[in-house]
């Protein structure tokens, strides 16, 4: 299929040749996104210069949010996810009285991409939250018995909330990295349950205790897509 872009109008004559080419490429991408991608893939390269199995650089920054018990900021290319862990205290379930809770959630707010509208979590956010929950449970990265303060009376609840700030694809991988990094960064106060007053009091002076994570367990996810029967990693 032969496609061509008409030359730019005369009002652009003061723009340099490189900028004119960049503008034409951007217009072409808007008008024919599939052909734009195919032209790159025919040369076995992707529009941002990566090889088909190339990853974007990942940068992780932990512990920057002082109000959270643990936090991490992950940037994977332009995709940016912030994750914070807040710990609260609750009564355990009756049939699992020495297990705590871990509640992971991913929020894809309207600010991260024009395709999300403000309001309740979109389908994509719900699906990703559910999948993340399954990964964290199945990998047992935080054994729930380690969150027990007093069997049958008090356990820790870890709310692991991730917020996407900038959505440029592959939120799942970035979110999983951020949740694991935040959990590794989490430190909880020392809590003691008092059977006489039926209350759990945390010590302000005692040093904070890091979470007891299962050793040598760091779930990592790698996403890939299939385009016209070729495989490309996100």
């Amino acid at each position, binding site marked *: 299929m032969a496609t061509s872009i008409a030359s730019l109008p005369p009002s652009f004559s003061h723009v340099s040749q490189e900028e004119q080419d960049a503008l034409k490429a951007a217009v072409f991408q808007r008008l024919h996104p599939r052909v734009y991608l195919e032209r790159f893939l025919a040369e076995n390269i992707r529009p941002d210069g990566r090889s088909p199995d190339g990853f974007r650089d990942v940068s992780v920054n932990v512990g920057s949010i002082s*109000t959270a018990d643990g936090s991490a900021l992950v940037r994977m290319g332009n995709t940016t996810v*912030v994750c914070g862990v807040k710990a609260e205290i609750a009564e355990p379930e009756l049939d699992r009285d020495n297990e705590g809770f871990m509640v992971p959630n991913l*929020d894809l707010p309207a600010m991260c991409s024009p395709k999300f509208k403000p309001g309740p979590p979109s389908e994509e956010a719900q699906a990703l939250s559910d999948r993340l929950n399954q990964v964290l449970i199945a990998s047992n990265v935080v054994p729930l018995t380690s969150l027990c303060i007093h069997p049958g009376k008090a356990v820790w609840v870890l709310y692991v*909330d991730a917020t996407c700030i900038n959505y*440029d694809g592959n939120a799942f991988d970035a979110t999983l990295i951020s949740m694991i990094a935040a959990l590794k960064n989490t430190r909880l106060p020392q809590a003691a349950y008092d059977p006489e007053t039926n209350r759990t009091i945390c010590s302000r*002076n005692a040093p904070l205790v890091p979470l007891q994570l299962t050793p040598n367990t760091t779930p990592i996810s790698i996403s890939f897509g299939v385009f016209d029967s070729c495989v490309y990693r996100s």
Partner: protein
Amino acid sequence: MNQAVFDRRRVNGPEESFPPVFDEITNDLTSWSIGMPRKARSPSDIRPIFLQPGLINQASGSAYVETDRTKIACAIYGPRQSKGAAFHEKGRLNVEVKFTPYSCQNRRAPMRDAEDRSIAMAVHQAIISSVRLETFPKSTIDIFITIIETDGIEGCVAAGSVAASTALADAGVEIIGLVTSCSAGIVQSEVWLDPSHKEARSSTGTLVFSCMPALTTVTNVWQTGRMSSAEVLACLDACQSRCNDIHGVVAQSMLAKEI
């Protein structure tokens, strides 16, 4: 207390959970309490502001503001088509504020509540006068502010207004001036600028002041608490001079941004 209404759209925890309660004994003598002089800075100093425009490439314009313990990200989408068929010859500005659950000392539920809306209203008031609405009829500009970490509501409103104004400039929306904002509190009859959460709670009244320094016009003043008129005027003067300094910081960051 986290009384989770069972939200079928999210992963849910236990029905009820409580933030940790700490014992009263503390040997942390360095933490500030009422009656002590201000820690680490003078009453008329504001905390240094780090401002980064253009962080969110998906949005038309964006800005990230960080001052000590307040971290706010702002993204602008638009002008885009207004929902609803009614014709309006001036553009609309829609501000939405969202707190992340881990932004406050006690976990916030992900639901939006009245505090989000009141901050959104204050930011809207602060920046609406600076935007040339007549340049985009029938359209809306959506401003989304996400508060990642907060140190008091006054700091949020002030930093949110600065972030929104910088993001508008980053998006190329036509504005008549940059809006900058500063907060102040009356602590022991003294004017303390940029109060932290603890300081604001101990104060008798707080004030958030937004203006356009380039045009020396005030866009929004939000005062809460009990202050005498003289104290209010003193706060206004102190905030105004600080806003000029903040304007310099914003202009500098816009110039430094890669085009």
